[in-house]
């Protein structure tokens, strides 16, 4: 037997409890598969936040509209990378387009992704920025002038009518975009929820739970970015916007928490044969990541903070501090949610009589370092995008 594999399995064997099948000792969906739903979740959440401005006319949160779109784009560009790295042979990725398999949910990812990227997000950003791009292309020097010209597709018309058309088009695309964002992330939940052999995953609630937690993580990330970027730019934070965002975040957390609690209670009441091993799983392997990090630190404490900020009419500074801490805790909590689904679902045996453990690589294409790199990469892309096409309205007003 392969020496390296033998050593790895020997280490793991001492961690195995009860009875498990031989092919269950090693976990196959690694931390990269945890990163993947987390990243796509942020995309869907950020986009849905953006749609609040465009479709539902929530004017208070307008300062974050473009930032949400750019955040969604930078995370969307990173979304397929964990899958590519996990599967290996990224040079073959295009083959899912050449040989489409309509009966495989996983194989349809390429199309869902391409539609969301090309059909929704890029189009909406283009319509939103087109007027500004034209202005910038006229004012800047070479080479930026040509970059803006190219980005605007050599468009030239900034008449009132044309800008109105842009606005209408962006709105129409957002309306199409909302179900598309639901599709993108609901799809990720569907992949897990439809694994009928795995009692931890198999649940019709899975897509909707994924979606709500996606909205939570997206809104929390935008609040975080808004609170970090605004002071860096030397501007003051718009408290009306922040309070509104915080209340949306609170509602989303409540719905998410209720759905997860419903799922939990439902499983408990059904008490299928898997209930004992799942209870052991929660008590032993996932105690820290599920009960402490996900539920306590990621949901209960942040929602208490969000409520406290509003209910006691605290000062602005204190509210900011509470919101900021809550957003960070929620990010950690949602990442932990993904961890508990992906890794938790592989920790127990299909014999329902034993548990294994996950030994994470540190370096390597599926290791911790790679996961961290993939989590940092969207912020690098976002920085470039923000430099290239600044999301604040003031910038375009100054230049125009």
């Amino acid at each position: 037997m392969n020496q390296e594999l033998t050593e790895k399995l020997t280490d793991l064997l001492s961690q195995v409890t009860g009875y498990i099948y031989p092919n269950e000792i090693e976990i196959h969906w690694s931390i990269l598969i945890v990163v993947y739903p987390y990243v796509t979740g942020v995309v869907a959440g950020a986009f849905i936040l953006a749609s609040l401005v465009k479709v539902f006319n929530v004017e208070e949160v307008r300062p974050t509209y473009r930032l949400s779109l750019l955040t969604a784009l930078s995370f969307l560009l990173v979304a397929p990378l964990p899958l590519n790295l996990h599967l290996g042979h990224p040079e073959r990725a295009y083959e899912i387009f050449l040989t489409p398999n309509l009966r495989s949910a996983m194989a349809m990812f390429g199309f869902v992704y391409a539609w969301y990227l090309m059909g929704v997000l890029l189009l909406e950003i283009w319509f939103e920025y087109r007027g500004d791009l034209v202005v910038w292309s006229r004012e800047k020097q070479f080479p930026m002038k040509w970059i803006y010209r190219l980005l605007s597709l050599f468009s030239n018309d900034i008449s009132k009518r044309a800008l109105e058309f842009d606005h209408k088009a962006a709105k129409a695309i957002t309306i199409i975009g909302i179900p598309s964002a639901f599709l993108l992330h609901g799809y990720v939940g569907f992949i897990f929820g439809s694994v009928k052999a795995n009692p931890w995953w198999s649940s019709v609630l899975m897509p909707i739970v994924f979606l709500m937690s996606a909205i939570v993580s997206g809104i929390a990330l935008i609040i975080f970015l808004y609170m970090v970027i605004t002071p860096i730019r030397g501007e003051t934070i718009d408290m009306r916007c922040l309070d509104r965002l915080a209340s949306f975040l609170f509602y989303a957390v409540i719905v998410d928490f209720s759905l997860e609690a419903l799922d939990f209670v439902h499983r408990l009441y059904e008490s299928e044969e898997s209930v004992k091993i799942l209870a052991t799983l929660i008590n032993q392997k996932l105690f820290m990541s599920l009960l402490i990090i996900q539920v306590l630190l990621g949901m209960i404490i942040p929602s208490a903070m969000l409520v406290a900020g509003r209910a006691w009419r605290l000062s602005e500074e204190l509210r900011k501090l509470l919101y900021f801490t809550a957003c960070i805790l929620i990010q950690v909590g949602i990442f932990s949610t993904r961890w508990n689904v992906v890794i938790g679902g592989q920790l127990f045996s299909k014999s329902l009589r034993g548990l294994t453990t996950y030994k994470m690589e540190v370096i390597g294409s599926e290791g911790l370092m790679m996961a961290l790199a993939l989590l940092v990469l969207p912020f690098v892309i976002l920085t470039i995008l923000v430099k290239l096409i600044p999301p604040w309205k003031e910038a375009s007003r100054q230049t125009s």
Partner: protein
Amino acid sequence: MPKKVPEQIIRLGIVISIIFGSVALTLYLLPPALKDKPFHRRSTILAETAKPIQFAGSNACADCHDDKYQQKKTGYHRNLSCETCHGPAAEHAADPITIKPFVARERRGCPTCHEYDPSRPTGFPQINPTIHNPLQPCVTCHNPHDPVPPRTPEECAACHAGIVRTKAISSHALVACTTCHTVPEKHKITPRIIRPTKPETRDFCGKCHAKGAPVVDAPKIDLSTHWEKYVCWQCHYPHLPAERL
């Protein structure tokens, strides 16, 4: 007067038609062979087939070791492949003289399957390697090509280790399993279908525990007044009589 098509639509239309056009063109230009699924799987198949073959398979073993093969074929290990215990033997099959396969002459191999584990099926032969003939290689007593299940009564522990351990510290430690249970020989082969007997009457326990019974040390009771409607083991756990249920 017809409405003017907005400039944006024209420009986007151009980009979209370029994308769709190039996709369509690529698909049209690609030779059909390139769109075949077997083509895309080829590199995987090549990578898999390029791996060195490690296992020879039982049939290769039978060619030379027919005696062992025939012996194993009817025994309890019939469903195990030779290489399960002897390890990958493709090299040995290619060069039988110089390369010898692994032969398990130590105690390490057998407990992989036969060490006591409560989650193993009832009746599966299990031992505690620490106390089961310590330091002796398993092959001294058991022939791995035709292993024979242990005999009753000494080896009830092979399957019922928990009960035997409990009984060993009870006041019934010196009472053999077969004193109370009659164990048909076939129980060892089909343990769930052919079951041993359990004492069904009060008089059975009374042989030692009734007033006037010949065993001096055993606690005595009056069978006619002591909870006469119950069988003894409904209240007393015979493998640890000090504990009452």
